[in-house]
């Protein structure tokens, strides 16, 4: 089996993601704004209660926030837009007419779309919130460097797994879209789940003690939370290996179950007509 169709699907969505340059700038401004507001909120909370031993230091909470903001578009907020359009117009039948493995075909496209959106934003925001902020004397509010070289390397591995995991969750939204023939459900379910459970709203390490193990064990933690913890060098229960292990586990589980769900969905489309 040739890889070319999948690389092609990847290349196409990567290009489409990059095409919206104004959206990148607009998104950057919005994320800087939200980041700055969040940082000020943390600063006042941390200064109001200096005796409390928080699981993250103020500096770490700030860095967590900056990375989280810069990776916002990496979250699985809903289905791949192209699949949403195809479901609405009925052009989705053409996807069944291509000589390709539909899971890999849609997965490559979904991954490319996430990366095409996230990579330019992440690089830009990291430059602004990191070196640039330090240069203009806002070092205390800036994105701090990694805990160590090893943390940085492991964080890179972890973020790669996170991107793949996110694309795999997008696949579930894609299948939902193909079943309901509308992209709306996937956004209604996907956006709140992803924003809340990824730690975008509040870093997962800052939740109450009793709920933290559950939050770490759910799949959305593997997208950005685990990579950020590795970057910061904050302890993960069971160590870095557990963090990476959780990512691999969810990747495998969601791929396996997702492929079954997809086969069942394609069968249903084939039985009932698209």
């Amino acid at each position, binding site marked *: 089996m040739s890889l070319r*169709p999948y690389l092609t699907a990847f290349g196409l969505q990567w290009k489409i993601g990059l095409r919206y340059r104004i959206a990148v700038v607009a998104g950057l401004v919005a994320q800087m704004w939200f980041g700055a507001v969040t940082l000020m909120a943390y600063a006042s909370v941390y200064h109001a209660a200096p005796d409390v031993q928080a699981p993250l230091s103020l500096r770490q909470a700030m860095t967590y926030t900056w990375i989280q903001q810069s990776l916002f578009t990496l979250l699985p907020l809903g289905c791949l837009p192209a699949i949403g359009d195809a479901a609405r117009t*009925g052009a989705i*039948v053409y996807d069944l007419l291509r*000589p390709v493995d539909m899971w890999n075909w849609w997965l490559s496209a979904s991954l490319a779309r996430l990366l095409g959106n996230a990579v330019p934003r992440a690089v830009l925001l990291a430059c602004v919130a990191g070196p640039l902020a330090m240069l203009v004397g806002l070092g205390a509010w800036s994105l701090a460097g990694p805990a160590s070289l090893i943390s940085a390397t492991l964080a890179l591995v972890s973020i790669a797994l996170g991107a793949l995991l996110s694309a795999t969750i997008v696949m579930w939204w894609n299948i939902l879209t193909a079943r309901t023939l509308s992209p709306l459900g996937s956004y209604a379910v996907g956006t709140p789940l992803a924003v809340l459970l990824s730690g975008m709203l509040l870093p997962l390490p800052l939740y109450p003690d009793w709920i933290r193990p559950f939050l770490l064990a759910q799949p959305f933690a593997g997208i950005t939370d685990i990579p950020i913890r590795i970057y910061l060098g904050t302890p993960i229960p069971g160590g870095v290996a557990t963090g990476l292990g959780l990512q691999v586990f969810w990747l495998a589980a969601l791929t396996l179950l997702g492929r079954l769900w997809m086969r069942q969905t394609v069968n249903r489309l084939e*039985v009932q007509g698209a």
Partner: protein
Amino acid sequence: MQTPPSPPDAITVSNLRKTYRIREGGSWRGKTRDIVALDGISFSVPKGQIAGFIGPNGAGKSTAIKILSGILRPTSGEVQVNGLVPWTNRIAHVARIGVVFGQRTQLWWDLSVAEGLALLRDIYGVEPERFARNRARLADALDLGGIMDQSVRQLSLGQRMRAEIAASLIHDPDILILDEPTIGLDAPSKLAVRAFVHELCRDRGTTVLLTTHDMHDIEALAERVIVIGHGRILADSPFEDLRTTTLSERILELDFHDTPPELTLPAGASETAREPRSLTITFDPRQIPAPALVAHVGHLPGLDDLRISRPSIDEIITRFYADHAA
């Protein structure tokens, strides 16, 4: 891998049935009911033939087309397309067919026609030289030169349909399935599409299965027409045979410069309309040949002009559907 002996027919269908289960009352507690879309149809299409597939809305045409394309599974029956069973060998099957759904688009709205074709080259694994050859040939035959670099969303419907047809043929499929390819097109675009399909079949031996509601498509293209209604095949013959068996009558119109006279007509002819200055006579040429009828009325006093016409293809098919309660 051993290649199976190629069958003489490009498409064989035998006793194909498809029932849909629908829920009544809309709620999930509602009763289910089976709707028969295809009630045991059989036909075969030899290689290189253009077969027209017609029938009123809801007759089962689309269901049959989807099954042959490999995107719908029948309830029972056998189908072989290029020697493959479409729904069990989906990937191998779809690599060898081209499909155009006239009401949907397979090209990418955000991309130019050229970029879309290049993507399809990669999806179907078409070698670069073959791709260049096919692209040049299709661009020439479908007059795509001027629109290759335009994005698909900017194309007119006629331009887009020509680009869609090129997209369905970039991998040299043996079989082309066209589902209402001329819907919404203006007259020149319709003629261009018809001419192209005709040449494709003649020059490359591509087998074409065509569904349409435009009977002129059928008249211009199809050597053979399969009429489907209520999930069954009502007729399967050359179009001329359908005309002879359904509505062989002719119409004779007579214009007078004064009130038309009363006249007695030979057997097989009857007056069907009378106006202040004209008469319409309908006749069956098997009972009274046209020259004899013309001789009969030719010396009527006050006759200015006369015309003989055949019923239009739309009238024939409407009558056919009515006769079969389709």
